[in-house]
């Protein structure tokens, strides 16, 4: 275990311990149903968090993803309602749009030398606004193909469902892992996170890479939008408010450093599952009022982060000794 992988192992350890604690209190937590739900219910978050991980690894941030997912849902629903296009064609169109949108933001960030936080904040307003312009109301999706997608699941023993969405998330994570840790592009991303000026001196085409990074995030947000539209079979411009913050929290819990340059895509998966676990635990408990729910979520978030810090400190101290 090197100092680099330490945060990852800390994250995994904490997740497992937390799961154990939950199981001891509610034995039903270990059913395949809950595990299947954990994957399915967090699929959209997992997919978008992969994109977010890459952005954060490069030292950036993308606040627009929640709005882009909402936009995607509305776009798909409206297109399916108003045109005769097959959903797959609509998906392709949508991914082209969101990828281009991400690329556009990346371009602005580079050309204007503006901080990503602000450019993507404007992007967040813009994407949600665009969603409103397509439709103010929520639009249901009724297409036979969606029935097919929805019913594509593998029934695990114990009635848990391993759905298409859950599998799609796992595949996205695997893809993200390869992209971030096994390609030249990934190394460039880490390089930018290590220091943009240095990266430039080492020959990273900073402009191009920035565009690619945000385009990737836009693509993943679009993909997550597709997943979300399958999940809810509708498009709603008000959906997903604040999802970007959940995604960021998942990435951070997963052990990626917000300033960039260090982290693991796999950690993000654990982060997402951890967030899902918190949610599930609160629902299983079912006694918290609305306000205590918020406080407890905050407190658990804090606990995870502090535990992680503690484990890290312990680890480095041992390594030094």
């Amino acid at each position, binding site marked *: 275990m090197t100092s680099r992988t330490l945060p990852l192992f800390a994250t995994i350890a904490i997740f497992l311990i937390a799961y154990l604690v939950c199981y001891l209190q509610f034995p039903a937590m270990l059913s395949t149903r809950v595990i299947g739900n954990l994957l399915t219910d967090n699929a959209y978050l997992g997919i978008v968090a992969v994109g977010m991980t890459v952005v954060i690894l490069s030292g950036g941030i993308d606040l627009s993803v929640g709005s882009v997912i909402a936009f995607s849902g509305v776009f798909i629903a409206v297109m399916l309602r108003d045109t005769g296009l097959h959903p797959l064609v609509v998906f392709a169109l949508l991914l082209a749009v969101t990828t281009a949108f991400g690329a556009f933001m990346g371009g602005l960030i580079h050309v204007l030398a503006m901080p990503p936080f602000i450019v993507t904040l404007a992007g967040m307003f813009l994407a949600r606004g665009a969603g409103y312009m397509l439709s103010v109301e929520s639009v*249901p999706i009724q297409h036979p193909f969606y029935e097919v997608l929805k019913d594509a699941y593998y029934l695990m023993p114990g009635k848990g469902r391993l759905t298409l969405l859950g599998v799609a998330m796992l595949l996205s994570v695997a893809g993200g892992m390869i992209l971030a840790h096994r390609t030249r592009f990934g190394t460039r991303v880490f390089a930018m996170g290590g220091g943009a000026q240095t990266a430039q001196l080492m020959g990273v085409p900073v402009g191009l890479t920035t565009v690619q990074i945000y385009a990737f995030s836009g693509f993943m947000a679009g993909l997550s939008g597709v997943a979300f539209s399958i999940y809810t079979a509708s498009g709603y411009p*008000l*959906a997903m408010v604040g999802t970007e913050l959940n995604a960021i929290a998942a990435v951070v819990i997963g052990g990626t450093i917000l300033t960039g340059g260090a982290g693991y895509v796999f950690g993000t998966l654990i982060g997402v599952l951890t967030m899902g676990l918190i949610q599930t635990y609160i629902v299983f408990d079912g006694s918290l009022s609305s306000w205590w729910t918020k406080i407890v979520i905050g407190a658990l978030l804090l606990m995870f982060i502090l535990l992680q810090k503690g484990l890290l400190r312990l680890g480095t101290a041992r390594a030094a000794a």
Partner: protein
Amino acid sequence: QTVGFSQIGSESGWRAAETTLTRQQAEERGIDLKFSDAQQRQENQISAMRSFIAQGVDAILLAPVVATGWDSVLEEAQEAEIPVVLLDRQVDSSEDLYLTAVGSDLVHEGEVAGQWLVDNVGDEECRVVELQGTTGSSPAIKRKQGFENAIEGSDNIEIVRSQTGDFTRTGGKEVMESFLQAEDGGGNICALFAHNDDMAIGAIQAMKEAGVNPGEDVKVVSIDGVPDIFRAMADGDANATVELTPNMAGPAFDALNAYWEDGTTPPKFIQTESRLYTQEDDPEAEYEARKDLGY
């Protein structure tokens, strides 16, 4: 019996009251209520319902944040033979998928408000400003639609400005201020229609501060029937409100009990009354009656 309740969130006093009443009703009937706050997010509601199913509750109450997108999770509940009762808002899924829905008709609420205005302005020229709810939310869309239906036949009534106040007091006040600026200090406005009472209360304050006399110079009609609007009516600042009762759980539990006992299936829609209250309805007493309900 254990019942899971997936609530939208706690975005307004009305919703807090609904939560409080649901808890009260459950307690009275000795039902173990599992409560989940979805913080305005449909995805949280869906995953909460799935957790309820995984936990094996006996029934689920759902106050859906949005009408669409519930088919698959409702199907799952059905497969697990867990009855689902919808509270206060509707879904556009097939009726077979849930036991019943308790709620009011949002369009009808708007119509009641609009009708009151039509009845009260007579033949005068009336320029109405409208404070919408959160853009895209179904109450905002449906209440607007109902109000427009009601005033359709009256050519003398016209909506001249319409903006979102996000269902909040601050929003209502801020938007009303700009309406007043834009409409000659309020001189051109004859009535205000607000999609909920909170915005109306904010707007009343804005009018008072601008030297406009709400209730007289500008008629105020809104929807929900929260305690504060009754006080405003008692003070003569508001004219009418359409009540939306926060006690949706009572009828829901009744229906569930009947269903558990002998499998009686209730009607698919149990409509609560959308009652109109005006200054004549002893607002002071109404205020007293409601002020401790957790609004």
